[in-house]
């Protein structure tokens, strides 16, 4: 099937098999490898991207479902080398260790802050429940999101 998908502001036309997953379009066809695959079953959230502004797990979206849509991946978040506040938060507050869950965690955090710019600790923990991290115990991830929320509100 022929599809048109805009990824990080750039239009892509591709002829794909109906079974192709969005994450494989992003990684294998377009070559953006910042979006990771951790479980293939929509549990871990490492593959989280934005589809028309909403966070989705791209391992359970078909590429054809993204036809005509706008997709943002971790590579599309920084602006001319200037880190997004959430990226800055994760680096500054050590919201990561191995880094494998991080792109998905950051994309999910961005979506969380869009809906709720000033979340409580409980709301952050609830909002990120669909993204697994095995390294941090989530403590510094929560701190990172708080940092970003403060920064975005101050801006």
């Amino acid at each position, binding site marked *: 099937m022929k599809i048109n998908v805009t990824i990080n502001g750039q239009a892509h036309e591709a002829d794909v098999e109906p079974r192709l997953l969005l994450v494989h379009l992003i990684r294998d066809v377009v070559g*953006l490898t910042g979006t990771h695959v951790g479980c293939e079953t929509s549990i871990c959230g490492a593959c989280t991207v934005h589809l028309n502004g909403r966070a989705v797990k791209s391992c359970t979206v078909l590429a054809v479902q993204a036809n005509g849509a706008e997709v943002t991946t971790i590579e599309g978040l920084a602006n001319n080398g200037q880190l997004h506040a959430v990226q800055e938060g*994760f680096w500054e507050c050590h919201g990561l260790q191995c880094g494998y869950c991080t792109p998905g965690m950051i994309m999910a955090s961005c979506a969380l802050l869009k809906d709720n710019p000033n979340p409580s600790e409980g709301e952050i923990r609830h909002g990120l429940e669909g993204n697994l991290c095995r390294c941090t115990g989530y403590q510094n991830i929560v701190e990172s999101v708080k940092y970003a929320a403060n920064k975005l509100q101050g801006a």
Partner: protein
Amino acid sequence: MSTNQTQIVGQSIQRKEGRDKVTGAMRYVDDLLFPEMWFGATVRSPIARGRIRSIEFTGNLPWHEFTIVTAKDISGQNCTALILDDQPCLADKFVNHAEEPVVLLAHPDKYLLEEARRAVKIDIEPLPALFTMDDALNQTEIIWGDDNVFKTFLVEKGNVDDVWASADFIVEGEYETGAQEQLYIEPNGMIAMANADDGVTVWGSLQCPYYVHKALLKLFGLPPDKVRVIQAATGGGFGGKEEYPSMIAGHAALLAWKAGKPVKLIYDRAEDMAATTKRHPSRTRHRTAVNKDGKLLAMDIEFVIDGGAYATLSSVVLSRGTIHAAGPYACDNVRVRSKAVATNHPPHGAFRGFGAPQSIFALERHLNKVAATVGLRPEELRRRNFLHEGQTTATGQVIREKLDLDGLLTRALELSDYHAKKERFAEHNATNATQKKGIGFATFLHGAGFTGSGERFLESVVGIEATATGNVCILVASTEIGQGTNTILSQIAAEALRLDYEMIELAQPDTANVPNSGPTVASRTCMIVGKLVESAALGLKQTLVQSGLLTDDYSLDEWRQACAIYIAEHGALKSFSKYEAPPNIFWNDETYQGDAYGAYAWAVYVAEVTVNLVTYETRVDDFVALQEVGKVINPVLAAGQIEGGVAQAIGYALYENVVWDNGTMRNNQMTNYIMPTSEDLPPIRVFFEENPYTYGPSGAKGIGELPMDGPAPAILNAIESAIGVRVNCIPLLPETLMKVMNA
């Protein structure tokens, strides 16, 4: 411009590779592409034990397009070299566990490859298999060696048998722990290029480049310079990428050699969980003599772990578990008898803590039972038995450092508001029928570095090289797997040379380029490798001083200038440092007596729980982790290690259950193997105390594994305090608790 006078060690400096990790620029193994690369797949045994009768390639598939590898294709020794070399790289004639690799396939089309994997039919005549430690011990079948026993240890101090008759109380107990999956979020993977001219090169997700190197040498029968192992960015390990990557590297390399193409072999989650290693299940039996004052008179401990089908690392996991079994207590008569036994499970392997979480779980549960028997509070019983300076551990190791476990316990109980909460919860529980609250703690230790003579045998080497600009590159095989290796080693080098943190970088771990600083395991990277980095850094400075290019007091400009001149004259400026055991450290491998570890971290962890008697769920409401770690190199990174370890251990205690069915893991997906989410975990409150260790960098000891040891017994102790019911097995799932309470 003067050299950096502010201390770099002790600061929460930003993670070296942090920017690449938040922008998606970091390249993990599955992100790497090579021209004409093929994909690899592994066909595995469907059953636990049997004789391979035939292998058939069925279905309407273009089999001639595939590269197919079996044991016959192995040019060297068919083993995954580790300690005993008993584990085949590919099963030949017999299989000894479910998911054992038998056939390898490679093809350029990964979708067709997956169809082909399913179309290979391995016909196996089943043989009787063992799935329990008791069956292994009772030798209902002999499946390994003469007696199904990989390793036995005996630690003996005093004579326990002289004590039983005079004891006021003898307390017995039995404790069990289950398997646990490491569950790094990045599944295992390797890429190999291999041919007769260039030898074998692999890139992969791994902790120990030189383990993989050693395994490939044997598998291919090649000289050391014809095998090269390069670590790609690694998405978590926790021990799960200590030994198993050698197997995957061997498979990828065999395929690449035969295909004449680079081959990428990436596991999906289901394969990773079903086939690779997990934490050893264990059973510990305690028999303890104690007098009416609560003094421990004798501790008799039997510790058994399930090693799975091959020896792999079970002997050393058993060793650490055995040595930690008697905990941080002074007791004149201790006997620990331990065994690692063979079953037809996939081999169990390294996982953070490495045997200690199992035996410490047993001990810290058991001591609460001892306390209750004597009529003492759990904290009072421990206070009466804590190790002090000058006393000896179970292996006869004299504690030479200032050690104040009493103070540590007091502080932990204060930080957690233990006593007040205990009273409050008693009132609460008296009036609330369904929500029961409890608080409990565990007191423990964890030895850093290889056990016993291990570090002497390893003889780790670290290199450090300066460039003409004065920047410095650290050459180690110690890998960054999330724990902060790059950052802390840079801090240590910057501190030693009084340079800016930004001037230090780490070479990519590549066996063609870095010396063997040993495996990235055993809480040894900071304490052992870090100390070598410190020494090598000082060696670099010494070279410049001795050459007359630098004085002991120098500015950054003087440093840069000295490096430039030296390199112009000599071509390069490098310094190497090799491990030497600290003086007065002795270990006897025969008697298992002596200084088991160079240093221990000491800890008291307190857990607060609510048990819901409608759903039987347990929630951890608060967690205090207090530990003495020598010196904290980077406070936020160090706390991150503790928080992550506690989170894994909460999973170990309450959620993470491996469901076995005739030796096959049935819940091999994240959908039904449950690890803690952000909502499941409480705030983890981490506190450090510092008591510098002479032979650690700036006084630091190892901390990576420590946090895995204490949470499970602390949580079960808290559950007991909440509901008054004694449960001695983990994971403690709601359904288990329901059965226990309704029994």
